[in-house]
């Protein structure tokens, strides 16, 4: 290849990186070449384990101690120094030259805004530190520059925000603080490692917009590392797809999305759910795992039209410091039909997980009613005493978000799956083991793994173990709390398909809690949207996606980045009026005013929306 031209800020050539493990070299980056032109955005796309994060660590000189660059070059040419080229691969990682680049000329932000900031230092002091390291200012001036930067990334009251601690901020604000820290020295290159993966859609749209604006103002190039093709389509000028440490495909965003040529990229596009999927269309996982359909008889619900679960007026308040309290769940009610999947969507803090926990009796509800209509008649779930509750437990089970912490690392898979049966006294050890084997088949795992411990499994496999455990007692209803949000796209497709197959073959009923609209769209027949502890809109999937009535639902739908160049996010529309879940940004028809309380207004087709009592369906359609 030709030497780096002045227009490329970064040029990586034939980069090979190995990790030393127990005396063996394990090559994780195998001859990657890519470039980042000045002022442009290049997306580095791949699943976890593809080596994309390792590449970013190598650029920053932050490889773990056992990581070795065995070959290739990382050429950084600083536009401020007339394109003088520095080979980062040759620089000592902690030398002064590299430290000047780090934070000074190359900034970085990370996936976890929660843990990326120190909780014991104010955000202002952490941001100012970066400034003082590379562009020293007198104290007062430095504070002024820092406050200006805080204002630039969207903090409302910079002087006060300077004094705040990271744990006092929401995820979105934390990521803004990280951006301020990375950009305060006006670097030539920003490396963003999954910057919005942990954020809600509306917040994600805001942060993406902010990155674009800052790029325009400061003129830096962005290396955007992500697995979300929707984000790529909306942000990138060029795309590099990596798989197992090798570049599969590279080109402009137009080339990549309109004419994907490599089978891996095509498969990746097919594995992510989007809103255009037809009824009955399946996601295609990259690697197929074929579960064996369980032989149990499917539940038949004919002649019983009552819903399986009715929730009414559920309410929960959390106490907080200084005697104040937060109304986490406010008058929530819905029905789940037999064999149905009801999706519960909302941003973090909207109360959706609390609803699931209260139905499970994992948290105490302040008031409300949960009625389960089982084969033996109606059961008042919240009124059960501890003895009756234990007997009732097998009817409802739960699948959790985090596949790592939801399985005890000290129990074998067999013990994990058997535990519910032991607690409920189902059968003897032999029968339990047999059932465990059957369940392993059902979730597509090899029963020979039963004697292993959870740490030897991948995230997707662990989630399968969690599903097997939830199925062990043959439940009627399963509450799935964000079951795929910790997983990669391709693994996500496998798990979603597995859940769908199990639902069909066993006649299961799901309450599917998620913040990901595309996932809920794929799974649920009916969807309820939660904001600020209340259900603001509920309806059949097609209705809700075609004719969203509530302003919050509308902004949610608008904020989802789609992997489609013809339907790019309209950042200005998606962002109108600050936070989308703030009632102050909604038209008066949807606000809780003194004129009268809000109620669910029927729009027809089982579609209802939360609005002022006086409104008619017509008012709302026109609002």
């Amino acid at each position, binding site marked *: 290849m030709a030497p780096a031209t002045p227009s490329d800020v970064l040029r990586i050539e034939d980069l090979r990186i190995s990790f030393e493990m127990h005396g063996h070299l394990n090559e994780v980056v195998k001859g990657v070449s890519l470039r980042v032109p000045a002022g442009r955005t290049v997306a580095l796309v791949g699943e976890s384990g593809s080596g994309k994060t390792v590449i970013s660590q190598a650029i*920053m000189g*932050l490889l773990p101690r056992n990581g070795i660059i065995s070959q290739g070059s990382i050429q950084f040419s600083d536009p401020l120094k007339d394109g003088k080229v520095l080979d980062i691969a040759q620089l000592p990682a*902690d030398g002064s030259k590299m*430290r*000047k*680049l*780090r*934070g*000074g000329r190359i*900034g*970085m932000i*990370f996936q*976890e805004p929660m*843990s*990326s*900031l*120190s*909780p*014991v*230092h104010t955000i202002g002091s952490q941001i100012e*530190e*970066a400034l003082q*390291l*590379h562009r020293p200012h007198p104290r007062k001036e430095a504070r002024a520059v820092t406050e200006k930067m805080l204002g630039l990334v969207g903090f409302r009251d910079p002087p006060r925000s300077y004094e705040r*601690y990271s*744990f*006092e901020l929401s995820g979105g604000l934390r990521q803004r603080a*990280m951006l301020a*820290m*990375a950009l305060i020295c006006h670097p030539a290159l920003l490396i963003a490692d999954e910057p919005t993966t942990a954020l809600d859609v509306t917040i994600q749209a805001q942060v993406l917009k902010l990155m674009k604006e800052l790029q325009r103002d400061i003129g830096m190039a962005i290396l955007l590392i992500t697995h979300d093709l929707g984000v790529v389509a909306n942000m990138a000028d060029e795309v590099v797809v990596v798989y197992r440490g090798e570049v599969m495909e590279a080109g402009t965003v137009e080339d990549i999305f309109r004419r994907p040529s490599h089978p891996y990229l095509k498969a990746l596009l097919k594995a992510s759910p989007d809103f255009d999927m037809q009824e009955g269309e399946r996601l295609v996982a990259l690697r197929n795992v074929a579960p064996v359909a369980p032989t149990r008889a499917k539940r038949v619900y004919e002649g019983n039209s009552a819903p399986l679960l009715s929730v009414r007026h559920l309410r929960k308040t*959390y*106490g*907080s*410091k200084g005697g104040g309290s937060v109304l986490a769940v406010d008058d929530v009610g819905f029905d789940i039909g037999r064999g149905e999947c009801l999706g519960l969507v909302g941003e973090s803090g909207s109360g959706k997980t609390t609803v699931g926990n209260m139905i499970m009796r994992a948290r105490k509800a302040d008031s409300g009613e949960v009625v389960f209509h089982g084969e033996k008649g109606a059961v008042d779930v919240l009124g059960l005493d501890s003895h009756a509750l234990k007997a009732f437990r097998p009817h409802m089970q739960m699948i959790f978000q985090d596949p790592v912490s939801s399985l005890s690392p000290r129990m074998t898979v067999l013990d994990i799956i058997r535990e519910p049966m032991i607690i409920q006294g189902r059968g003897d050890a032999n029968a339990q083991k047999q059932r465990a084997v059957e369940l392993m088949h059902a979730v597509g795992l090899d029963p020979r793994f039963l004697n292993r411990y959870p740490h030897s499994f991948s995230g997707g496999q662990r989630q399968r173990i969690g599903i097997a455990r939830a199925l062990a007692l043959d439940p009627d209803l399963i509450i799935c709390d964000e079951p795929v949000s910790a997983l990669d796209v391709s693994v996500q497709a496998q798990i979603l398909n597995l859940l769908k197959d199990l639902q069909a073959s066993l006649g299961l009923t799901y309450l599917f809690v998620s913040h990901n609209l595309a996932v809920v769209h794929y799974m649920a027949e009916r969807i309820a949207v939660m904001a600020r502890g209340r259900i603001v809109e509920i309806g059949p999937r097609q209705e809700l996606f075609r004719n969203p009535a509530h302003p919050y639902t509308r902004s949610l739908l608008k904020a989802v980045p789609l992997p489609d160049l013809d339907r790019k996010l309209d950042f200005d529309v998606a962002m109108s009026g600050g936070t989308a879940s703030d009632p102050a940004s909604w038209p008066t028809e949807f606000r809780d005013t003194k004129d009268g309380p809000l109620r669910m207004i029927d729009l027809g087709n089982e579609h209802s929306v939360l609005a002022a009592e006086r409104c008619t369906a017509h008012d709302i359609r026109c609002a």
Partner: protein
Amino acid sequence: MLRYIARRILIMIPTLLITSALIFTVMQLPPSDYFETYVAEMAAQGEKADMSRVEFLKKEYGFDKPLIERYFLWVTGFVRGDFGYSFEYEMPVSDVVGERLALTVLVSFCTILMTWIVAFPIGIYSATHQYSWADYGLTFIGLLGIAVPHFLLALIFMYFANVWFGLSIGGLMDPIYFNQPWNWAKVQSVLAHLWIPVLIIGAGGTGSMVRAIRANLLDELQKQYYVTAKAKGLPPGKALVKYPLRMSLNFFVSHIGDVLPSIVSGSELTAVVLSLQTTGPLLLRALQSQDMYLAGSFLLFLSCLTVVGVLISDILLGFLDPRIRLQGGRTK
């Protein structure tokens, strides 16, 4: 923050009341008391105890009164600074403990100081050079320090000091200074004797401290904010001290609470072996002879120090960690 401190102080009161009641009950539990032990001991030696004196003391200290009343006499006395009377030494408890307490505080203070000065650099080095040969070596030495009992270490020291240098290293000063008023020569003698017990008693503490610092720091070194600090361009040493080390201090500050009681107690056996004039052997003897006021007052004093120590830890933690200061008391 003020409310937080006030609440903490209020909680101390019931804690101490319950503790004192427990100590008092334990003191009363044995079937005999000091006087019976004393009379029996005298009888065993073929002598006659002065029964009138015994009767007088029994009356003076309310042994003829009900239990509850005696408890209140004792506790209220404690508040007034009257710690009771040591029957064995035949003088007030405060006089018995007197000089010994000062010496004990001196020994313990030096020990703790040495522990921190030695443990911090080693712990930090071990954590940042995990699984290196130096780490393994230092960890091994630390484990030795934890595993070998103090009194055994003391015996070994004494033996070799005697065999190689012909020295007697016991005691905290030359015997000629016993019960002498303080002067420069006495101070010099104390300083010359001090380092041996400090070294011996500190060995175990240093070992466990190194391990704790290493473990806590290793946890923090994995955290994302440390990477952020390095990504800013901070030099490695500065990034280490400002971020992970500061965070790992929380454990250390909570530990300060335990240090306070151990300043006056702890390492009794070593003190006995080295015949140190500290409070440890005194407590041991008081428990053996059922010298109830000496033992009880001592235990209650330790409890007070523990509670105060925890209070100091909590207040320091509040200052050090804004999460505790700003989020404490929030219910989930």
